[in-house]
């Protein structure tokens, strides 16, 4: 089974989740737990870094959908950054760029929060 893990970095009130490996129906709960943890700590400004993510399935995309509403209700946002072309295509196909802000780099995403 493919591996997946996340690392969490905090920069002021912004939380940066770095994804690594394969995000699919089996590994999605790992990311769900991470989001739950952030939300229960009232941290709603979230940047997700896709730099090291090799693959994402539709169930993986579902994780972002499951939390976006709650996060935005609390004046926060989930911003996505550093996607490979392959991962971006999957997001793009489903129309995610219409719902999420996607940035080339993590820094840009963080900067957007501070504006």
């Amino acid at each position: 089974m493919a591996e997946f893990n996340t690392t969490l970095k905090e920069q002021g009130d912004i939380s940066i989740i770095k994804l690594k490996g394969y995000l699919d129906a089996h590994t999605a709960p790992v990311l769900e737990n991470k989001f739950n943890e952030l939300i229960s700590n009232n941290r709603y400004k979230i940047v997700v870094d896709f730099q090291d993510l090799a693959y994402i399935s539709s169930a993986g995309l579902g994780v972002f959908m499951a939390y976006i509403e709650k996060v935005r209700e609390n004046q926060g946002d989930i911003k996505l950054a550093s996607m490979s072309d392959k991962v971006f295509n999957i997001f793009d196909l489903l129309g995610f760029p219409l719902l999420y802000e996607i940035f080339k780099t993590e820094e840009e995403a963080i900067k957007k929060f501070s504006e």
Partner: protein
Amino acid sequence: MYLNRILKSIHSTISLASIAALFIIVNFQSGSNLVLLSLLQDIISIALIFALSVKIKEWIRVNKISFLNLTVAVAVILGIMLTTIWISPMFMDELIQKIKKEFSLFSFASNIVGILYFCVFAIGAAFIFVVLKEFYFSKRIKYNPVYFQLLIIFAILSASSYTLLKNINDAIPTAFMVVTTILIIKNSFGISWIAFLNKKEKYKLLFISLTITVLASVLAGYSADISLHSETLITYSSGFTKLSLLILIYALVYFGVLFFTVLFHLPTAEAFDRKAEEVSSLQLFSTLINQVIDFDEMADTITDLTRKVSSADASWIVLKNGNTYETISQKNISEKDIVEINNYLLYSGECKNITKAKICFLEKSSIKSKLSENLYSVIISPLRTQTEVKGYLLAARKSGLLFYEDEARAINAFSEYASIALENSRLLNESIEKERLKKELDVAREMQRKLLPAVDPKFKELQICSVFIPAFEVGGDFYDYYTENKNEFSFIIGDVAGKGISAAFVMAEVKGIFESLSGILFSPKEILIRANKILSRTLHRKNFVSALYGKINFFTSEFEFARAGHCPVLLVSEGQIIKYQPKGLALGLDFSEGFADNLDEVKIKLQKGDTLIFYTDGITESKNMSNEDFGEGRFIETIRNNSDKEITHIAKEIISEISLFANNTTQYDDITLLILRWKKN
């Protein structure tokens, strides 16, 4: 028939016959001192004792009386015998003289009292004899039955020689007596059965054996002296008097030895008890491990036994849960104290990386003052599986008494058993879960199969070919055809995010929605917008659905479609491949007006021989051994190389290319491929 009955209870018959015989002999003997008659009396009384012994032994065996209770019975019987001696002068005054007189009504009545008196002692002696024999033959590592048999032979010899030679020679019976007494002493040593009694029982036994020793010595005194008691018994059988004396001596010696043996065992009794408890609880564990499915239940047993065996005041089990520890069983300790001790020992303290049981002292620690109970020392033992520490078993003692190494070792053994139990229950749960999942997937796959169209429809204007290859875990792909409207062919192809039964349910819902909408609305865009609206009531955000709805008009040769986040459409026209990926969000991502605003509809005029290809991401995301995707490039290349062939052939080529590429790598997602070819000018 009577004979049968007599044979059946031969020992009772012998007993009763012996008593009757003795009664008759004494009745008519009238004080004569014939030696042969005395010998006959001895033989009869010995037969009586043996017959009674057999009966008593049977009774003990049938009722399974414990050794401790047998000693109590011996004490009681000795007490009865002594009481009988004490109260007998009240109604046995001049008894002997009366019996020995000429046969009369008085002598007859006295004889009845006398025989009853004799019976009390015969039964008592037989009982004590049986008990002593049982003790001799029990739980001996090495014993030689010869010594016991010798003892019986010499006892009989000394009894009969006394009767035969009492007026001639004293030396021979005395010699036999001495030998018998030596054998008695020899047979009284090597008492091992008391080792298996617990401390309380040992105290009880100590008291009883002392009582028996005292009673037996008093009784022996009465039997040896010339008294009303011994005179009465001698009247019936002088040999029996000797025998009962020997039995009393045996009881005296045996229980005397027993008293001291128990006395010396007492200091170690507690340690012995604990060891015995340890052994039996380990045994209990090994049976429990294989029976108990619920680990929590098992954990309760473990904490209980740990507390007993190590005589701890409190014990508890914690299991690792991420970075924290969760208490799953606790005995005699508050949650607050557990938290304090866990914090002290596990998070910061010296017991963080232990591999076996360790004794820790709280006496001088910083947390001592924070505890609500006065806990002095703690044993902590890790619950380890092959690879990691899953939790800890802990036991604590309140008093100033510290734990010892042997207690730590016992708890270590316990924790090892607990680890096995833990691992067992995990493996069991895993296999139950696996089985459940398998069943669930079977249901989901069956559902999916029934939701998909059984056959591809046939038209003269349009060729249709579909391929569906389910993944082991249902991937959520679906497609459907709508042919109710004349001169029109509509279809849907989609993919539900997620897997298994939940995906299958969404699939069923979506199928129903599109089936009804296809009959009411005509524009693919309208249908998708309405479907999104309907789904907003039920669909969870994470189960969004990518879908593509298409419609071909047979009159106008027009193909109309809208794409809700689904894979693009590929049009093969005159050798050229054109990719159509109009704007569109997957269903369920956005329930606002944004969905409609971002959905484009495309209309294409078809030429004869045009081929339309629809698919799901199961094709482009098929993986090979090195985890590479099959990808759009290879997919389009395969189509290009086969574009002039029949559509069934194209489908076949695509699938075979994918399987060639995947080369037995597990297929993680459903594969759906739908190819249409326009045949009309």
